[in-house]
């Protein structure tokens, strides 16, 4: 074998070893790499750290936001379109916190099953468009839904 081929083999083998090792590490730490858990796991209490804060992410259900008058306390419900989780929070929310928007709540479950959040972060999606386009698009969607309902 030529020296160059030897180097190639050595490098190739170590690369494979490295990829394998990191793959196994990720597999082991997969749970920890999750920035937030979804609503269903939170509601069914799968893999929830005991007595520790965790993050849960879902969509804010339309019409579920309730703000207590004269206070920064609010409550709303998050969903992953399968389950619903009620959240209570006191504080300022980001501007993108809106109905139908994806948000991440950091806190823990209270005994009454309500998630008490200490921080709220808003997620945004990877779609970018001018407001006019969005309007015509949603009109289109409404028409479609109406069309389906009519059938």
């Amino acid at each position, binding site marked *: 074998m030529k020296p160059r081929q030897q180097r190639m083999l050595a490098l190739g083998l170590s690369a494979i070893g490295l990829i394998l090792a990191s793959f196994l590490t990720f597999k082991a730490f997969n749970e920890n*790499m999750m920035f*937030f858990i979804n609503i269903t796991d939170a509601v069914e209490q799968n893999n929830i750290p005991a007595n520790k804060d965790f993050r849960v992410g879902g969509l804010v259900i339309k019409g579920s936001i309730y703000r207590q008058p004269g206070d920064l306390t609010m409550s709303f419900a998050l969903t992953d379109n399968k389950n619903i989780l009620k959240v209570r929070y006191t504080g300022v929310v980001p501007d993108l916190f809106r109905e139908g928007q994806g948000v991440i709540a950091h806190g823990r479950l209270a005994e009454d099953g309500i998630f008490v959040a200490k921080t709220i*972060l*808003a997620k945004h*999606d990877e779609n970018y468009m001018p*407001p006019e386009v969005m309007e015509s698009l949603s009109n289109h969607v409404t028409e479609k839904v109406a069309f389906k309902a009519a059938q």
Partner: protein
Amino acid sequence: MIPWLFISGLLLMVYGIINGLFYAPSDYQQGDAFRIIYVHVPAAYISMMAYSLMAFAAFIALIWRIKIAHAVIVSAAPLGAWFTFLALLTGSLWGRPMWGTWWEWGDPRLTSELLMLFLYLGYMALRASIPNITKADKLSAILILIGAINIPIIHYSVEWWTSLHQGSTLLKSGGPSIAAPMLYPLLASIIGLSLFFGSLLLIRTKAEVLKREKHSRWIKDMILGDEV
């Protein structure tokens, strides 16, 4: 070649930034804050491209012992580090008004990009600590290759794990999900910065090769030839 790349890159960047900043429509959800995309995405793209290029050069340098490949790695590192820093900074400036946080530890996209900044800095520190240039070349190239595992992690972090960061807009199946008047300035600034990066990389590599070959005959002829 270098002036051509430099000027065309600069013009495209200026076009992209002016259009992105003033002429592109605002976003339906994020308003004008989305305009940070015109600097954040090119910077993040270059930060990853520079590293991929370095890893590719390291592979060639280690196997075929091609000296110029080491000069390319050395020259790309500071540029890559600057643009990684810029991607983190602009991302933070975007995250504060939109997500509600400057920085979140534990987010896979944010953390892996920060790791890449440390890889760049670690590479430069490792080189600086080894006086023997051949040895420094070899060890630092190995470091770059090991760190290359981070590149797919950065890219797929938003798909493999849950993240605060949204998915890819441009490289998604079914085409980019961004309206055309917003897309063109973005493409212009990405391509512009790439050309610009290429021109700076060539200038640096040229200087690096000159430095490494300073005792050879052709360099002497070339430089003395310039003066006559």
